[in-house]
C-alpha cells in the first residue's frame, strides 16, 4: 500500500456515500421511520375524541390540525438526526473529511426529509379523509407538507446540531426549533385553507418554496457551524 494517495473522489462521491449509508441505516431501524407516522395518526385520532366527532367542525379545523400534527411528528425524529453519529464517533470523522461539511450535513438532512417529511406528506391525505377535509384540497395538503417539511428538516437540523452534545437535548430542541417553524406552518396551513376556499394556492406554495430556498441556502452553514461547536463539548 502506498503511503499517500491523492484523494480522487470529490465531494459528490462522499455525499452519495453518506446518503446511501444513512438510508441503509434508517431502513435497518425501520421502527424509527414508522414511529413518526404512527404518532401522526394517533394525534389526529385524539382530536375528534377530544373535541367533537361533528364532521363540519372537524372540516374547519382540519388544515391546521393536520399541519400541526405533522410538524410535531417530524420534530419527534429530529433528535436522533446526529445523535448516534455523535455517540459512536462518526461525527468527528465527518468533520475531518476533506469534503465540505455543509454538503455532507445537507445529505443527512435530505435523508431525514426523505424518510420522515415525505412519508408524512403522503400519509396526510388519508388522515384528511378521517377529518372530513373538503374535497379538492388533498393534493395541496400533500404538496404543501412535502414542500414545507423540507424547510422544517433544515431548520430543525440546526437545533439538532446545537443540542447533539447535550445529554438531554430533546425538550430543549423543541423549545429552540418550534418558534422557528411558525412561518412554515402559517403558509402551509394557509395553502390548504386557500384550496378549501377555492382561492389560488400558487402564492402560498410559492412562498413555501421561497422559504425552502432561503433555508437551503443558509441552513447548511448553520448546521456545519453548530456541529463544530457541539463536537467541542
Amino acid at each position, binding site marked *: 500500500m502506498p503511503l499517500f494517495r491523492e484523494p480522487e473522489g470529490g465531494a459528490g462521491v462522499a455525499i452519495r456515500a453518506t446518503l446511501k449509508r444513512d438510508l441503509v441505516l434508517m431502513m435497518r431501524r425501520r421502527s424509527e421511520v414508522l414511529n413518526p407516522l404512527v404518532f401522526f395518526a394517533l394525534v389526529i385520532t385524539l382530536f375528534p375524541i377530544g373535541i367533537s366527532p361533528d364532521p363540519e367542525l372537524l372540516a374547519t379545523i382540519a388544515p391546521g390540525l393536520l399541519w400541526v400534527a405533522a410538524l410535531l411528528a417530524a420534530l419527534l425524529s429530529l433528535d436522533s438526526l446526529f445523535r448516534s453519529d455523535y455517540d459512536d464517533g462518526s461525527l468527528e470523522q465527518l468533520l475531518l473529511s476533506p469534503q465540505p461539511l455543509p454538503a455532507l450535513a445537507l445529505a443527512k438532512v435530505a435523508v431525514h426529509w426523505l424518510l420522515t417529511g415525505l412519508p408524512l406528506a403522503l400519509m396526510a391525505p388519508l388522515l384528511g379523509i378521517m377529518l372530513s377535509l373538503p374535497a379538492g384540497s388533498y393534493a395541496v395538503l400533500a404538496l404543501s407538507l412535502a414542500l414545507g417539511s423540507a424547510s422544517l428538516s433544515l431548520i430543525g437540523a*440546526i437545533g439538532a446540531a*446545537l*443540542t447533539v*452534545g*447535550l445529554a438531554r*437535548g430533546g425538550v*430543549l430542541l423543541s*423549545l*429552540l426549533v*418550534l*418558534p*422557528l417553524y*411558525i*412561518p412554515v406552518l*402559517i*403558509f402551509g396551513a*394557509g395553502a390548504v385553507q386557500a384550496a378549501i376556499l377555492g382561492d389560488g394556492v400558487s402564492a402560498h406554495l410559492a412562498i413555501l418554496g421561497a*422559504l425552502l430556498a*432561503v433555508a437551503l441556502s*443558509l441552513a447548511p452553514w*448553520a448546521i456545519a*457551524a*453548530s456541529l463544530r*461547536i*457541539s463536537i*467541542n*463539548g
Partner: protein
Amino acid sequence: MWAFIHKLGSPKWFYAISERLQPWFWVAAAVLILVGSAWGLAFAPADYQQGNSFRIIYVHVPAAFLAQSIFVSMAVAGFIYMVWKIKIADMAAAMMAPLGAAMTFVALFSGAVWGVPTWGTWWMWDARLTSMLILLFLYFGVIALRGAFSSRDSASRAASVLAMVGVINIPIIKYSVDWWYTLHQPATFSVTSRPAMPMEMWAPLLIMVLGFYSFFIAVTLMRTRSEILRREASKRWVRELAGEVS
C-alpha cells in the same frame, strides 16, 4: 481601526471606559423616562377613540421596540464574538438576553391589559402580540441553550449561532404573522398602527423610546462589568481591583 476594536475587546480597557460612560446613560434614562412618563400620563391629550387607555402606548411601544432591538444586538454581538473572538461581545450578549426577555414580557403584559378596554378581552391574537409571544419563546430558547452547556465556551458559541439564526427568522416571522392576521381578521382595528398621531402624542412616545434605550445601554454596561469580574476573577488586574476597592 483594528487596533481600536481589539482594544475595545480587552476586558480591562472595557471595564475602565464603561465606568466613565455608564453614569451618563443612567442619568439620561432616568430623566427621559421621568419626563416621558409625566408628559404621557398627565399632559398628552386623551385619544378620541380610546380615551385614556391609550396612554398604555407609552410603555407598550418602547418595550416592544426594545425587545426586538435587544435580540438584534444580541445577534450582532454573537457575530462579533464568532468572527473576531472578542469575549466582551459574548459577555454583553449573555447579559442582554434576560433583559430582552423581560422587555418582551412587559410588551406582552401591557398589550394584554390594553386589550381589556379596547377589545374587551385579555388576550387577542393580534399580529403584534403574537409576534411578541414568539419572540419571547425565542429568548427562552437562547437563554436555555446557553444554560445547557457545561463548557462556557461552547455555550457562548451555541447561543451566538442561535441568536443569529433567530435574527434572520424574526423578519420572516413578523411578515408571516402580519399576513396571517390580515387573512383571518380582515380590517380590524389594530391598537398600534394608527393614523397620524398629533405631535403632543408622539413626542412623549419618542422620549420614552429614547429613555428605554438609554436604560438598556446602562443596564447592559453595568451587568457586562459584573460579568467581566465573574469571568476574569483569576486575572491579576481583577484581583488588584478587588484589593483597591476593599
